[in-house]
């Protein structure tokens, strides 16, 4: 499962950063840095939640 951020939709709300701290970190303005694109199996559920809960629907997952 691959994780991508729609950089235009993203407005730095930061929910994904708190949901997936293993994969994402924040720059100094709160926007995500994707350190790891590939979602480990253990985090699939959290990744799906993050994608669903993003206020801007900016987080996308591709199997």
């Amino acid at each position, binding site marked *: 499962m691959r994780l991508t951020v729609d950089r235009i939709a993203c407005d730095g709300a930061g929910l994904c950063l708190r949901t997936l701290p293993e994969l994402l970190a924040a720059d100094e303005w*709160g926007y995500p840095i994707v350190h790891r694109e590939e979602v480990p199996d*253990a985090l699939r559920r959290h990744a799906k939640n993050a994608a669903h809960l993003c206020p801007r*629907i900016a987080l996308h997952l591709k199997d």
Partner: protein
Amino acid sequence: MTLWYATRVFGIVSFVLLSAVMTLGLLGASRRTGYGAALLHRSLSLLSVVFVALHVVAAIGDGFVPLAWKDGFVPFLSGYRPLLTGLGTVAADLLLALVVTSLLRRRLGLHAWRAVHLLAPLCWPVALVHAVAIGTDTPTPWFLFPVSASFAAVLAAGALRLSGRGRAAAPVPVEPLKERLNR
């Protein structure tokens, strides 16, 4: 008579749950909460749909007051206090719309979801008026306490929301990735 009690209990519980959903929603919109709160917002909204449904079924099924099944969906046409009951129906319909569009938000897209969620702040005051005006328990403590507490919570969260779109004290800082073990 039991169903009538059930109707009132389900009603109060629904209102408390709805208020909790509203509070979490307001705090989330001002970016003061994280993952856990967002999940709770989602779970509680689903739960409140369940309790509203139970409240409606009990009220209509009971037969104590003249209510028909259509009054659960179509407002202001009931035989019993049409305006106040109707407000409850409106709140229930709004809640249903909010939950359904939220479940389907990725398919509907941001704009459609947002358009409906803009009506969210309307749902709660309508439910409040319905509860306070129609509730036959209004003066009793087991109505007053949960309803006032819920009211206070929503107002506080609303004040925070209006006080500006603040980020939390600092955004999640740039640091090495945290490992979350054994989830």
